[in-house]
């Protein structure tokens, strides 16, 4: 009867958050983890709208961004006095700002959940971003506002100067916020939000105003988005207009979807993925946005339940117990899939390298190999690999689907 609050799962999550900094050395790792915590909160808050409420928002960064600005203001103006606001509570200021903003804008946008909602959120997002750029003295414009998180009293020596202290603050917020948002899905309001997602007309005929349900959901979602923004302020000590922009909103949508919207586990994966892609993948290749776009397309078409949905499907297949029979086929699928990826990757990288050729010469390193964009052989190799992987992949996929309908996509 209480399907969402498995104690063991949460204990594991808490333990992971505590131990994560010690799994790997270095400031970069810690920075990645901090950003992941923030992204997880943001994606979860986005999924209250998308997955739980069926509301496709193109302007979620408005709430996280304004939360970040409010937190910056609090950090710069309220934390230094006596008695000053403790730095630990600054993210809550962000949350309240996000919540207030959602209260104001919520009623405007929640009349319907479909195209109208999407369009209005898009417009509000653009509007807020434009206003932020028009008022550089308030928003700091593209340069942004900066602050110092080492301010005010430092209880138990917690100055929040060292990154590890900030990480643990973020981790604590991540745990609590995730728990609260998952708990929300088990409240009457949470279930009514699902009902509104499924069939708003019927909700009205059982005595609830679907618009009010959506508005409340938006306010709750705005609060947690604001908390994420406030944590980002503490983490980076700088916030600029980009935090409000359409690109950020788009990232929330993209990665929440990639993680999976059907459950509240998906957005956690989505948040992790978001940091891996924007930080690691972007450092690794210039074409990262292209890869991301392709991945998004593939997922929309073949795995609309996202990464979490794929994992669940695997779990089901494993529990059915006949995995020994389909394992060879499955491995074949993976192998040919990897070959496809390598081939496609080579072509993409070479295409991208064409524009750098003048500066960097015609050769590039790719997976330990040297490719040359002026050599036909390099291009042929890429195409060959792509086809060599694609043909068996498609054939195997057909066999697989025939042999095990529904086992995995």
């Amino acid at each position, binding site marked *: 009867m*209480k399907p969402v609050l498995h104690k063991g799962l949460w204990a594991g999550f808490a333990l992971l958050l505590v131990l994560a900094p010690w799994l790997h050395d270095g400031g970069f790792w810690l920075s990645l983890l901090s950003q992941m915590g923030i992204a997880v909160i943001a994606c979860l808050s986005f999924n209250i709208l998308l997955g739980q409420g069926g509301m496709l928002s193109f302007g979620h960064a408005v709430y996280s961004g304004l939360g970040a600005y409010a937190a910056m203001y609090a950090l710069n103006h309220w934390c230094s006095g006596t008695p000053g606001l403790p730095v630990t509570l600054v993210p809550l200021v962000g949350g309240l700002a996000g919540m207030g903003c959602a209260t104001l804008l919520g009623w405007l946008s929640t009349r319907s959940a479909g195209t109208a909602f999407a369009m209005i959120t898009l417009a509000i997002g653009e509007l807020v971003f434009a206003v932020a750029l028009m008022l550089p003295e308030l928003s700091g414009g593209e340069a942004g506002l900066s602050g110092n998180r080492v301010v005010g009293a430092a209880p138990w020596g917690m100055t929040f100067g060292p990154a590890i202290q900030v990480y643990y603050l973020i981790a604590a917020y991540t745990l609590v916020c995730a728990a609260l948002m998952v708990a929300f899905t088990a409240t009457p*309001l949470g*279930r009514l939000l699902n009902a509104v997602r499924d069939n708003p007309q*019927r909700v*009205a005929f*059982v005595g*609830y105003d679907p618009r009010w349900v959506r508005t409340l959901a938006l306010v*709750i979602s705005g609060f947690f988005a604001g908390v994420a923004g406030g944590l980002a302020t503490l983490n980076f000590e700088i916030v600029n207009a980009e935090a409000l922009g359409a690109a950020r909103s788009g990232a929330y949508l993209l990665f929440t979807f990639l993680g999976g919207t059907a459950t509240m586990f998906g957005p956690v994966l989505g948040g992790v993925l978001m940091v891996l892609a924007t930080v690691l993948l972007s450092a690794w290749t210039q074409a990262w946005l292209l890869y991301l776009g392709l991945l998004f397309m593939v997922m929309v078409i073949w795995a609309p339940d996202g990464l979490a949905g794929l994992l669940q499907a695997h779990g089901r297949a494993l529990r059915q117990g006949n995995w020994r029979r389909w394992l060879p086929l499955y491995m074949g699928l993976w192998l040919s899939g990897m070959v496809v990826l390598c081939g496609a990757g080579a072509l993409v990288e070479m295409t991208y390298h064409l524009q750098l050729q003048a500066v960097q010469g015609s050769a590039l390193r790719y997976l330990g190999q040297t490719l040359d964009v002026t050599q036909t052989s390099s291009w042929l190799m890429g195409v060959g690999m792509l086809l060599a992987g694609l043909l068996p992949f498609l054939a195997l996929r057909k066999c697989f689907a025939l042999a095990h309908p529904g086992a995995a996509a």
Partner: protein
Amino acid sequence: MSKAMALELRDVHKRFGRTEVIRGVSLSVPAGERVALIGPNGAGKSTLFNLMSGSLSPDQGDVLLQGRSIAGRKPHEINRMGLARSFQISNVFPRLSVRDNLRCSALWSLGTGYALFRWLHRCTEANQRADLLMEQLGLSAQAGVPAQQLSYAEQRALELGMTVAGNAPVILLDEPTAGMSQSETVRFTALIRSLTEGKTLVTVEHDMGVVFDLADRIAVLVQGQVLAFDTPDAIRANPLVQQAYLGNMLPSTTEGGR
């Protein structure tokens, strides 16, 4: 009016474009009575039904629910005033479980409101009502199954359950037995009767067996006007009705009231 009227239509008119579909209907349904609305195709039954439930608003005239006008009110407000309706095409929450469909339908009437600071699984009254309804509807075994995976007849049963879950005193059922087999219809009619015990019921129905079995009074709608509104026996005997609509579709008097 000596008796309290649960639902009252006063000279209601409704036109779509140039076509006047409802042409001055006045109808009073006393509390606790079961009324069936019949009429040939195109007579305006569905339109009248939507006017009664507030899904459409009349161009002229008024609809009163327990003495209060529902004009200009939103569906959720009308529901709170004490009217619940079902839909001809099953209109459930497809991804929610059967239990959740029923719970969500009962929550408002139990005063839960838009509750955020309590657990749904601890809303004891809503859970008990859902459990009881599932038992009555024969859906207990499917409590955790998403509504979209139910069979057609099961979805019809759930639709009925959601309509009565809020305990509204006035229930409108839109072709509750449409598309059901003969045996399902008989079982379902009994179910409707027991679930709406003591309530005011208005139903649109094509199955004459159900109509004459269930209704205390029958309203015959022809070309947007009420031709007759009387007990089943009187309707059966009414020459106007026979002429205009029923003809040989009527179950004969001897085997009537199955």
